[in-house]
């Protein structure tokens, strides 16, 4: 009996075991039953469904055989603003792009990059596994760079000109012909059945003042504004149209919505508010890199090169990288161990940290004294310094003195050298011209005699020290949330690497106090004197002349060229020079102005649409947006402007040139299609982190699928502005528009008429490049343009241009990067410890002068009032910041391959904050700012400062296919995948200290303040 029971038990156990085993192993057994492939048999036994390789290399002989079915074109990626060189693999038969990888000649794609005279075939060898060469020159495109080619074949792409049907932003469109487009936008008329609309012809008047009562505003032609995106190689042609042919002063790129605070901070530091240069670390040799609101290897520009060099430096143990950021980004790396450090900080308070560091460095004499003492160029040469600063230069500080805030110059002392700055000479202890002194005193607080008058003066460094000492370390620490000891540790570490320590900043400074934050971050570099040093900071390697007056063609001059005049609508102009000021002054109250003015700022895209809608300083009659999306990219603009912008009374004509219907082009009256990526012509250049001259060439590697003009050009930005200009009879377009070196004039009727000649300038600069071979033209697909090359260029020009096109541009040899311990390409102006231009301008709302040295102020409104006083921490306890990912740009949500990797964003919340509200990862939460409210999914994580909410940029679209549209009566349904996640810019604020439509802006330079937006958080 007992035995039977045991047998039954055993049998039952065995059967159960068998059953569970069967269920558990069913997938494995199924896989085995499918045989060798466990699924579909791929094309190739080993390489699976991978594409056929671009070329093969005979292992023994090293002979290269190119794939006869493909060509590999070197062009430029426009997936983000880095503009890396890419090699685009094209299938000859179908003329489709198969895949994208890195251009081995290009500094942004490979390190080291190939010597320029390497033949294309030899280049193939260097990229291959042959003798493991490919590991040396690993030319790559990043994840985004690989995925963006989806844009070419995006079903939501605009392929023909569109005209709105019904009200603005209603999503209904009608395809129209190119001829109708040009006719209507140029001539105007009752275009929408809503009454007459002025066309471009009526607006284009470069002589009549737009407001005779305020002549400084300039001519009527200023009532056309052109908004562009970033400098991706085509912008100069659009600028030629808008600025110097149409004659409008209102032309801007995207900077005011991108990183203007950073650029302005560097411009102040580098004494150049015209060129707006900026610095980047020499990543290959830097030992200590302090990133304040920037994240190399995670985002930033150039994205891929920074990432590679940072990884290399950290892996080698050379580079320590510190990230000061409310959000932990992937610039940090777990795998890098102690080579990285994350310093969480409260949003908008980086300035406090920086000023605390500066104070500690100055008080503890941790600065590079010999560098800062150098007063001028000659002294620098004598001291073996590749740069110098105005640290020792004397500034008049006497209250009420006519020269208050200005440097003492030779002219003030009656010296022969009128422009010479004055210092207190270190040796003699007496005032001396900076040109005559070998070393100046660093800290000066004295009186000198100017024109018989005792005047108080201080040295620049003295002013910086006093400004930094306005608050104690404890106060700075309390403001920014970084412990006192940690601030001292940062300052000590930063000053422990000689010239090989660098501080950098970027989009994290897009706060209302961002200008001074950026100026302060830049100032840290002056403390160690790293400019132009190996391992220090570089202003970039520059480029060969392209759009300027080049060796072959002159793009700076052409018959009838107009000099745009007047006040930009973004008010980049001194308020004190306006009629408004004079009238108000006459009434006794010159301040406040009706809105903020930004006298030394530039490219404030963020002020264009609000100013136009407010009609201040004047209204616009037409707006052309090209490849830009301020409605999505500008914090607060959508909630502020959506109703007014939809009303044509406020802005009668809006034209968008865009490959897609995005959040901004949705408001357009006309949409002009455009080429994307490798379909375009263009001459681009990296914006930083390259030490040698670099010009990237964009040329169509495939034909775009766009509708065509009558002369068979694809309808795109270039064909639109050329046709519009010709119809308007504008100078610089059509017949006899481009002068060559001999003074002959050449026609500009097609994009290649312009860009091939730009290429010729590049190819002929200095020692001209070699001539192309037929083989290289075939391998790279340049031969497709042979007819154009021969038609546009002269016989001696085109083979050299084709040589450069085949390589994707022109690149100086990498061995020119350094000269000993100095960089090869060096910045030539002095560093501004004190910036006179800044100091002698005033806030137009209050009349208060700006600080000439970096300073700490909490986030403020345009009139300098503290934001937290109006929107208290109690009522708005959390602060939203944007953070960037390695994959999404503002315009890449359509790329299925990117969404596959990372489909949506959420809001990052610190666990301590989440716990109090019972929020767990995955819960839906609502964020409410004083301006708007959004719902999103919570991501609870320790990688964020307490009290801060991080939102990854690039999601939450309501354009680009995320909303349905009707084109020609046919419905294009909305794609939910493209609408995934949440857009942080929706939460952006208006500025209550301003009138009319406004978005929160940098107090000094006007850039859009998208960081540190106060919100409430609740679980839905």
């Amino acid at each position: 009996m007992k035995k039977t029971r045991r047998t039954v038990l055993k049998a039952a156990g065995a059967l159960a075991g068998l059953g569970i085993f069967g269920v558990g192993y069913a997938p494995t057994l199924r896989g085995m039953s499918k045989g060798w492939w466990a699924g579909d048999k791929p094309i190739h036994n080993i390489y699976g469904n991978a594409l056929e390789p671009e070329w093969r290399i005979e292992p023994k002989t090293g002979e290269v055989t190119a794939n006869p079915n493909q060509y590999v074109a070197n062009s430029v990626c426009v997936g983000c603003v880095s503009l890396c060189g890419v090699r685009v693999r094209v299938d000859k038969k179908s003329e489709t792009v198969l895949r994208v990888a890195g251009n081995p000649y290009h500094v942004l794609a490979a390190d080291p990059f190939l010597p320029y005279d390497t033949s294309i075939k030899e280049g193939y060898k260097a990229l291959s596994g042959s003798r493991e060469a490919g590991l040396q020159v690993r030319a790559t495109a990043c994840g985004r760079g690989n995925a963006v080619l989806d844009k070419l074949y995006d079903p939501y792409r605009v392929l023909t000109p569109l005209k709105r049907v019904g009200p603005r932003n209603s999503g209904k469109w009608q395809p129209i012909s190119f001829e109708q487009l040009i006719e209507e936008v140029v001539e105007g008329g009752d275009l929408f059945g809503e009454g007459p609309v002025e066309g471009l012809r009526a607006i284009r008047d470069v002589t009549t003042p737009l407001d005779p009562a305020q002549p400084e505003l300039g001519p009527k032609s200023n009532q056309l504004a052109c908004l562009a995106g970033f400098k991706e190689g085509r912008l100069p042609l659009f600028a030629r149209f808008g600025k110097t042919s149409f004659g409008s002063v209102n032309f801007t790129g995207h900077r005011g919505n991108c990183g203007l605070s950073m650029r302005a901070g560097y411009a102040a530091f580098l004494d150049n508010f015209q060129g707006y240069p900026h610095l980047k670390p020499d990543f290959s040799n830097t030992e200590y890199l302090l990133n304040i609101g920037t994240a190399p290897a995670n985002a930033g520009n150039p994205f891929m090169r920074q990432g590679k060099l940072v990884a290399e430096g950290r892996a080698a143990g050379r580079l320590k990288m510190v990230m000061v950021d409310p959000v932990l980004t992937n610039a940090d790396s777990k795998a890098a161990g102690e080579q990285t450090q994350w310093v969480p900080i409260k949003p908008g308070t980086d300035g406090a940290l920086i000023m605390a560091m500066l104070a500690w460095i100055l008080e503890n004499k941790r600065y590079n004294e010999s560098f800062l003492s150098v007063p001028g160029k000659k002294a620098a040469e004598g001291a073996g310094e590749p740069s110098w600063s105005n640290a020792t230069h004397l500034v008049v500080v006497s209250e009420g003195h006519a020269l208050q805030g200005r440097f003492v110059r030779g002219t003030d002392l009656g010296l022969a050298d009128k422009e010479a700055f004055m210092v207190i000479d270190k040796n003699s202890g007496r005032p001396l011209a900076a040109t005559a002194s070998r070393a100046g005193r660093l800290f000066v607080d004295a009186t000198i005699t100017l024109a018989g008058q005792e005047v108080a003066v201080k040295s620049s460094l003295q002013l910086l020290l006093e400004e930094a000492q306005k608050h104690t370390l404890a106060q700075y620490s309390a403001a920014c949330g970084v412990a006192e000891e940690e601030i001292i540790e940062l300052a000590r570490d930063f000053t422990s690497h000689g010239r090989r320590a660098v501080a950098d900043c970027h989009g994290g400074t897009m706060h209302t106090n961002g200008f001074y934050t950026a100026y302060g971050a830049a100032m840290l570099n002056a403390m160690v004197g790293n400019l132009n040093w190996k391992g220090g900071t570089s202003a970039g390697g520059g480029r060969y002349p392209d759009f300027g007056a080049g060796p072959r063609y002159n793009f700076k001059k052409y018959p009838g060229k107009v000099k745009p005049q007047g006040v930009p609508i973004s008010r980049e102009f001194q308020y004190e020079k306006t009629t408004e000021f004079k009238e108000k002054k006459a009434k006794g109250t010159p301040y406040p102005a009706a809105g903020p003015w930004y006298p030394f700022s530039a490219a404030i895209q963020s002020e264009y649409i609000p100013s136009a809608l407010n009609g201040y300083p004047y209204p616009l009659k037409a707006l052309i947006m090209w490849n830009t999306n301020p409605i999505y990219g500008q914090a607060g603009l959508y909630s502020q402007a959506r109703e007014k912008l939809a009303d044509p009374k406020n802005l009668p004509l809006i034209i968008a040139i865009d490959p897609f219907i995005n959040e901004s082009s949705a408001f357009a009256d006309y949409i002009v299609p455009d080429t994307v990526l490798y379909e375009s012509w263009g001459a681009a250049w990296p914006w930083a982190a390259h030490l040698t001259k670099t010009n990237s060439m964009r040329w169509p590697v495939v034909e775009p699928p766009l509708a065509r003009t009558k002369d068979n050009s694809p309808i795109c930005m270039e064909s639109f502005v050329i046709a519009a200009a010709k119809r308007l009879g504008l100078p610089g377009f059509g017949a006899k528009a481009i002068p060559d070196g001999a003074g002959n004039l050449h026609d500009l009727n097609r994009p290649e008429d312009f860009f091939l000649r730009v290429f010729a300038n590049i190819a002929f600069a200095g020692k001209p490049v070699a001539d192309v071979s037929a083989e290289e033209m075939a391998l790279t697909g340049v031969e497709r343009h042979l007819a154009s090359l021969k038609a546009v260029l002269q016989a001696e020009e085109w083979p050299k241009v084709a040589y450069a096109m085949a390589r994707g541009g022109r690149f100086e040899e990498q061995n020119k990067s350094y000269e000993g311990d100095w960089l090869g390409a060096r910045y030539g102006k002095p560093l501004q410890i004190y910036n006179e231009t800044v100091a002698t301008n005033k806030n137009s709302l209050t009349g208060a002068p700006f600080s000439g040295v970096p300073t700490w102020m909490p986030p403020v409104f345009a009139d300098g009032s503290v934001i937290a006083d109006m929107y208290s921490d109690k009522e708005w306890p959390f602060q939203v910041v944007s953070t960037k990912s390695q994959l999404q740009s503002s315009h890449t949500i359509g790329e299925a391959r990117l969404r596959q990797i990372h489909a949506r964003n959420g809001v990052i919340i610190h666990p301590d904050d989440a716990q109090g509200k019972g929020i767990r990862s995955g819960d839906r939460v609502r964020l409410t700012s004083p301006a708007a409210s959004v719902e999103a999914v919570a991501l609870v994580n320790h990688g964020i400062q307490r009290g801060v909410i991080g939102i990854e940029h690039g999601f939450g679209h309501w354009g680009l296919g995320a909303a349905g549209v009707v084109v020609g009566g046919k419905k294009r349904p909305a794609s939910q995948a493209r609408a995934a996640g949440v857009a942080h810019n929706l939460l952006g604020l208006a500025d209550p200290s301003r009138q009319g439509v406004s978005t929160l802006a940098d107090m000094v330079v006007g850039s859009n303040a998208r960081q540190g937006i106060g919100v409430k958080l609740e679980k839905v």
Partner: protein
Amino acid sequence: METKIIELIGPGPHIHWGLPIVQDIFFTGISTGAFVLAALVYGFNNRRLAPLGRLALIVSLVSLLAALLNLIADLHQPGRFASLFWRMHATSPMTWGLFLLNAFLLLLAVQLFFVLRADFRGQARSEGDHRVVRLLALIGLPLALLVHAYSGYILGVVKAIPLWHSSILPLVFLAAALVSGLALMILLAGLLLRNQQGELPGDLLDSLSVLLAWALAANLVLRLFWYTIGMAYSTGPAREAALLLFGPSFSTATIVEITLGLVVPLIVMSLAPLRRLRPLFFGAALAATVGVWFFRWQLVMAGQLLPKTGAGFSHYEPSFWGSTGIMHVLGNFAFWILLMIVLTWILPWQEPQSSHDHALRTKGA
């Protein structure tokens, strides 16, 4: 240093070695541990352990078979597992492992055959068979150790994963194998073995517990060396890895695995009065076995959670279904139980009295 950060934004790397690898290492460890016991009986004539000799061989064989199934399930093209035999790579530890595993499997089968042959014939085991059994046990012992050391080796050679990349890992693995093998044999002895009086075999369990105590102690000492030298006193990624073990994985790594799986069983196994409390005793053996499973899990997973790029740790949650899911693990355990039932059913797993005598005789001789 912040240790609770999970990567959210970056496209994190996938976990390539999932549950089947944990399970494989766990079972090869038991196979090795059990064989060490069998080798003590057949190779070194341990009389006290003799009643467990055959069962230990069966456990070793069954566990090895169960372990190998995991390696097949882990392949995306499982039909190809056999191609390892002809696609060899002389410098790859995986190829070496292939031969070790198969040689050990063969040896186990032959060993079992010679141990049982006489029983099937209804005769006493011949001297010749005895010699063969002894020889195989002596060859098998180093082979068994190598088989499991290989599991540690194959993780240890991965220099991309700092938590694994340690030369002490094979030794730590061996100590863990002995713990799991011996602890499991205690559980099986408690379940299946009774002496002539129908009681638990006290002497046998005492012998096993002393062995287990040594194995536990060795394990703790090796861990101490590894964690202190390899992590606490090291820099860079290895340190980060250690933080992961003792930070976010505190409950599994420190509480379950080290405290419940090693320290508590060591105390119980070392103190006779505690051993007499049979529920505590068997509970401790069970905890030691489960603890080793968690050690395997911990090591395989935590090692991969430290990303090469990315500022936070990766996150891993096994799926339930699928060839590498939780159901697979349950199926694998079920396979083990199934084979154990079948083999103990059809094979004479209990050592006949005469063998004990023989062992005695041999020892006396």
